[in-house]
């Protein structure tokens, strides 16, 4: 994965490329089938998943689940939601919260949990460092 760069050093298109590189690096980890970055409104910002998976429905569910966990964590007073994994017989779905959305990885059952979790944490650090907080003004 590329070294961490400060957001101030990058223009918008560099950040766009960087985010695709980050998703690609997660998707190419050993025993990982695919990865995506989905914004909190469910829009796919970058994806590298097998063509057999319908991307938009998965993104809608991942974003809704991510927001549910964020809101749940804040309501329980446990602090900000960070990462989650959901395992099934045929694989595991990983989810990590970043400033611009949720990083999702789909892994084989035999995937190394610690390696994927570390990769997701690094991906979130890279994304968050590239995206300074948005200006305080309203969107409208």
């Amino acid at each position: 994965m590329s070294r961490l760069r400060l957001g101030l050093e990058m223009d918008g298109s560099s950040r766009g490329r960087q985010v695709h590189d980050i998703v690609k690096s997660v998707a190419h980890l050993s025993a990982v089938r695919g990865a995506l970055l989905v914004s909190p409104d469910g829009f796919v910002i970058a994806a590298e998943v097998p063509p057999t998976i319908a991307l938009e429905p998965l993104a809608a569910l991942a974003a809704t689940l991510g927001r549910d966990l964020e809101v749940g964590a804040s309501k329980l007073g446990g602090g900000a939601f960070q990462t989650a994994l959901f395992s099934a017989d045929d694989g595991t779905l990983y989810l990590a919260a970043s400033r611009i959305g949720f990083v999702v990885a789909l892994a084989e059952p035999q995937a190394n949990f610690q390696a994927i979790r570390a990769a997701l944490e690094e991906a979130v650090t890279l994304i968050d460092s590239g995206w300074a907080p948005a200006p305080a003004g309203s969107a409208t």
Partner: protein
Amino acid sequence: MTAVLGRLWRPAVSRRPETARDLLGQADRLRRAGRFGEAAQLVVRGLSLDPASITGHLLAAYLHVARRTVEPAKQEFRWVLERDPSHPRALLGLARIALEEGDLEGGREALVRALRAYPDFPEAQALLDGLATRQPTPPPARPRLDRLRLPASARALLALGGDGAVIAARPEAAAGGGRRIARAARLAAAALKRAGLGALRRAIVEDAEEAHFLRADATLTLAVALPRTTHVTQGLLEINRLWAAAQHELAVARDAVAGATASASARRVS
């Protein structure tokens, strides 16, 4: 000569005045790249040129959601729906906010409206599938799991039936979190299914303070909240131990019900 100079000095970039449509199109491209701050500035400029633009207000709603500012997002989605009551994207947006807020019925209603207007809407269908609930188990069949104990290091323990209803909570006050856990488990199960991975079996959710370990099958979901410092292996051992204890108690309860039924039948025969 003037005409020739004019052609030679014509600026490379057209200087036609910017239109709301151009600005909002550019804003949408930036939004799709995750560049929400820059997109928001263009939406503000676009809406100042065309305050009644549905596209502009929809983009504003998306950007508010992206910034996790829920109330303004809701207002923007509603603004769109006042002008176009079956706008699918606005309905989907409002449905997602309703789900976030725990308003399952509101979320379901908005999704059904969106699908009624646009039956081929995979995102709305996926979310609606994620909200599907099983019929509640009749009370006599619902075991109480009285012997299930809260581990010393845990803050809370919850057991949910196959229908998502709380069948045990330690302490009792933790029962309030049951609906949220049931909803998250349903959404996760739907996402796993969409990804072709199968049915939900285990989950670990980590926030800044706690690690939540969960185990599930079609009839039982068990979740325990442990300190964030808990090692994953330790957390998995703990949830597996609780799972075995809960399954044992469920088996005992089932045997007791079966025994009572058999005795009643025998009495009727004699």
